[in-house]
């Protein structure tokens, strides 16, 4: 394991983060680079990627001052841009057509950038803030590198990075997937939530409940919900905890994969990475000042005897051998919160306690945890029971004959055909839908620019060469994407199928009166 293996596994993809405000003088260009993957690329190559990006950001601002470069399409590569924070850019370069799956939907790639940044901010605060704290850039680099490497390790298939391609066109990153439950269960959940929220006395706690990889309830703001949900599905849910079992999550591919980069990420054997990413060693008890918490490190969460999940990622108190409780930043309230996940069977509860409300650190957290167990154990049992009863299994949301993705953009919720069912579709069908989604993405961003507030209304049905229908419907902030593969269907038949689906599963949201 080492840098060599990391680069062979990832050739075809580059990811960099740079700060336009840094390295303005000649000879200091390296200062711009906050992160570069693969790290073992020669600096000249890294600088040329960043130079091109910077050049085009400047160039496009001549014509489009309000929105600078978003994408460069070249014959062999796509460069996807995302301005994560003012003047802090993330650029992902992917190789096209290297294998038959290397056909990308740009928006899906951009959402990867957005996701990793949001997660980073949740754990460490903004990149800019960290740069201000340590203007040398050492601090941010030492945080970004392990974090993003850990994040990328969730994308492998075999030894390759498998980024979202056209095959993932029936998924939507950056949304949560909800569990549908009966009225009775909902009442039980509601009562559990009120207990959770009040278990730290007067201070306002937040909570999130998941069943398997599906969201049951949240009291967080939508953005915070997405971030925490993403993290929970990545690292906390029963699927994420149990290695060896494939996750069937809508968004994630097997999260239990070989940790192809995580190992190499921190073994900074090369002088290159040593130089920039002078982060600490990986020893869990390495209590030096530079110690960087690797919030996304794999296999570091365990279920304790009391049902709470613990990790030593945030350090261990040498004296008491108690693991430090992780903290996260809420975007909405800009508040630091203790993250206390609890798991019972398939039910995962996440309690967020304001750091400010706990005066005596870990002891105080332990107290709250204890209180939770005392007050909520029974309710948790009940909720779990109710939800398990109504649980339809992995294919609960499969609708036979349909392969679909339903996105509620206003609530950031999506639901889709189970991945196992989507894989039955022909490549041509998936390509057709992926291309259609590309078009729709453009239309959506146009509509957003041109008339903010006015909802885009669009209906497209395409019959592809292989006779499959690729369908997109957008109305009232909701989006429905569908592939219907039954041969010899007419347009009217396809429309009728959408209508039926809409009436039955979407409360008629996509029905034409």
């Amino acid at each position, binding site marked *: 394991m080492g840098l060599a293996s990391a680069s062979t596994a990832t050739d075809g993809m580059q990811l960099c983060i740079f700060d336009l405000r840094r390295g303005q003088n000649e000879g200091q260009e390296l200062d711009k680079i906050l992160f570069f993957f693969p790290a073992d690329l020669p600096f000249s190559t890294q600088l040329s990627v960043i130079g091109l990006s910077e050049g*085009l950001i400047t160039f*496009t601002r001549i014509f*489009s001052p309000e929105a600078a470069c978003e994408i460069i399409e070249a014959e*062999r590569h796509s460069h996807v841009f995302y301005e994560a924070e003012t003047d802090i850019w993330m650029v992902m370069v992917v190789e096209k057509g290297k294998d038959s799956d290397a056909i990308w939907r740009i928006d899906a790639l951009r959402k990867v950038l957005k996701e990793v940044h949001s997660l980073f901010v949740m754990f460490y605060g903004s990149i800019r803030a960290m740069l201000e704290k340590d203007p040398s850039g050492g601090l941010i680099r030492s945080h970004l590198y392990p974090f993003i490497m850990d994040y990328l390790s969730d994308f492998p298939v075999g030894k390759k990075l498998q980024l979202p391609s056209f095959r993932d066109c029936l998924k939507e990153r950056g949304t949560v997937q909800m569990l549908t439950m009966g009225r009775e269960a909902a009442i039980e959940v509601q009562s559990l939530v009120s207990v959770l929220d009040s278990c730290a006395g007067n201070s306002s706690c937040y909570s999130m409940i998941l069943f398997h990889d599906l969201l049951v309830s949240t009291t967080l703001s939508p953005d915070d919900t997405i971030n925490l949900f993403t993290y929970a599905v990545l690292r906390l849910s029963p699927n994420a905890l149990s290695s060896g079992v494939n996750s069937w999550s809508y968004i994630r591919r097997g999260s239990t994969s070989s940790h192809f980069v995580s190992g190499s990420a921190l073994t900074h054997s090369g002088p290159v990475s040593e130089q920039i990413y002078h982060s600490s060693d990986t020893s869990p008890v390495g209590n030096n000042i530079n110690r960087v918490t690797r919030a996304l490190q794999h296999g570091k969460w365990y279920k304790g005897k009391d049902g709470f999940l613990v990790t030593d990622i945030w350090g261990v108190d040498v004296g008491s051998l108690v693991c430090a409780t992780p903290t996260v930043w809420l975007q909405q309230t800009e508040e630091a919160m203790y993250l206390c996940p609890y798991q019972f069977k398939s039910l995962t509860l996440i309690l967020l306690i304001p750091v400010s409300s706990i005066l005596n650190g870990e002891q105080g957290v332990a107290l709250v945890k204890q209180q939770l167990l005392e007050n909520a154990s029974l309710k948790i049992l009940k909720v779990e029971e109710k939800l398990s009863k109504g649980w339809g299994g992995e294919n609960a949301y499969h609708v036979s004959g349909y392969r679909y993705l339903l996105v509620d953009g206003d609530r950031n919720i999506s639901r889709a055909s189970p991945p196992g069912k989507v894989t039955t579709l022909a490549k041509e069908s998936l390509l*057709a839908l992926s291309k259609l989604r590309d*078009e729709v993405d453009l239309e959506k961003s146009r509509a957003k620019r041109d008339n903010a507030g006015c909802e885009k209304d669009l209906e497209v049905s395409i019959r592809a060469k292989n006779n499959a229908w690729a369908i997109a419907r957008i109305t009232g902030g909701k989006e429905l994407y569908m592939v219907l593969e039954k041969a010899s269907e007419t347009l009217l038949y396809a429309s009728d199928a959408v209508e039926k689906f809409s009436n039955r599963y979407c409360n008629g949201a996509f029905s034409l009166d």
Partner: protein
Amino acid sequence: MSTSSSSPSSDEELIFNPNPIPKPIDDELTLASLTLTESNGNGSVGESDRYGGAGVVLEAEREGEREGPSSPSSSGYAGERGSSSEGTSNSRIGDEDDDGIQEVINDHDGFVDGVGDSSPSASWVPGKRHVDEDDASISWRKRKKHFFILSHSGKPIYSRYGDEHKLAGFSATLQAIISFVENGKDRIKLVRAGKHQVVFLIKGPIYLVCISCTEEPYESLRGQLELLYGQMILILTKSINRCFEKNPKFDMTPLLGGTDVVFSSLIHSFNWNPATFLHAYTCLPLAYATRQAAGAVLQDVADSGVLFALLMCKCKVVSLVGAQKASLHPDDMLLLSNFVMSSESFRTSESFSPICLPRYNPTAFLYAYVHYFDADTYLMLLTTSSDAFYHLKDCRVCFILIQRNNNLAFDVTNKGSSCVATVVRYHSCFQPLDPANTTVQLWIQWLVATVVLLRSNVLSEVQRSMLEGGMRVEDLPVDPLPRSSMPHRLSQQRILTQSPEIFSESIVGIGGPTGLWHFIYRSIYLDQYVSSDFSPPISSPQQQKRLYRAYQKLYCSMHDKGIGPHKTQFRRDENYVLLCWVTQDFELYAAFDPLADKAVAIKTCNRVCQWVKDVENEIFLQGASPFSW
């Protein structure tokens, strides 16, 4: 590719030919200089002063082009009213510079219109705009669609807006971006930023760039750059590349001096001419017999050694004929007709010009003879023979003579060998011409064709068709069943619907039956399309342009390079319902009211297809047998 053999084209020629723009041959200067050059005998066209002065030819373009708005499907220059801006006051600011030997003459068509590409008010005027601008001007940056041509060393060759010289720095930036990506063993295609797209097309030493916020798909913009490049090749041939091989810093601008109008008119046509993305041509609707008659005349000409003979009305084909095994690509026809229509000299008198058909043979020149019969109708003869080119002087004299003594000329009703003989006999008393000479025969055939066309009813029919327009959605036969009893001939239909004013009044604002607003039908086999005339509610040029762009988008979506073509597409947004249907034989693009019912729309599309089939003899050029499509 029979042209290459006879073509004298070479890079020398390119270098010494400062302006390949056609020149009226009745210009005394030209005749004089032609005589001079002729003597070198090797067919090399072109001392630099041969044309007297470059740019002269093109100056007086605008009068003829200032037309009122009309249907893009029926007229050449409708449409950019939708694109040229709030300023209707086209005050002329550039000074006339006829010195084509000097570098670019970018000022001679300077017109000011307002910022943007959106107001439908101003009627389109060809030629360069906003020469006073450069990349530092806010107004320049806000233009909706820029086109640039530059050389691989970063030298500006053409810019739609602004003075190329002032844009040298900007041009160098574009070049830097391209070469930066090339250094990484890649080739840049597109940059997207908000509404803006920057599209790159690299053609050897020539770089083409479009910067646009018109929201057209990448594929469309790239196709437009391809056409722009083709237009350049049409003027210069691809042998221009050799100039760059010899000298990377070669300055091409003098070679293109005065051709701004050609480029600007092509760019304008991207807004209204479906041929620019359909890669098909359209015909002027004519009775079958009339088109046959025109075809017969052209065929006679073709038989005497012409490669292609085209009779056109604006950008629509009346008839065309090609020599055996020679086929004319629709893109070449588009570029050729754009070249001819945008160059004023062709209008004022019979003209000749070396041209290159990029799809036919990008490396060789052909020679085009152009004769306008009226403001819109013109005959084009393309030949590979450079001899013909040089004998034009004689022929011209001959023609003048015939015109002056029309009654003496010949009896055109007996066309064929006898009338050829007459002409030759007549002519021989003036100047010895060898009737066996192919050039002479060609010329005579040309004369015969001209006179036959003039005396036949073809031209009057063409004019009538121009006035009457083409297919209208309002005329879509309601019930397809009694078709046999009631022939839906285009012409008869028109008489039915046109004469009673009330009838057409009553449907204003509704479009055709069942909310059909417009359609384009493309016959794949024939490489031709027919587009219905615009009628309310698609009446303003702006609406027309919007619909046109929607079609463009639909076309690109249907013809995806990787997985296309798709079979069917239904698309409903706030503006339209669009239906596209692609089969092996045809493609149909139809626009409906956004509230149109799906089932009814499908039925209507079927009826449109049937209707087109019923009148196909009138709207398409059928059985163009000499073509090897």
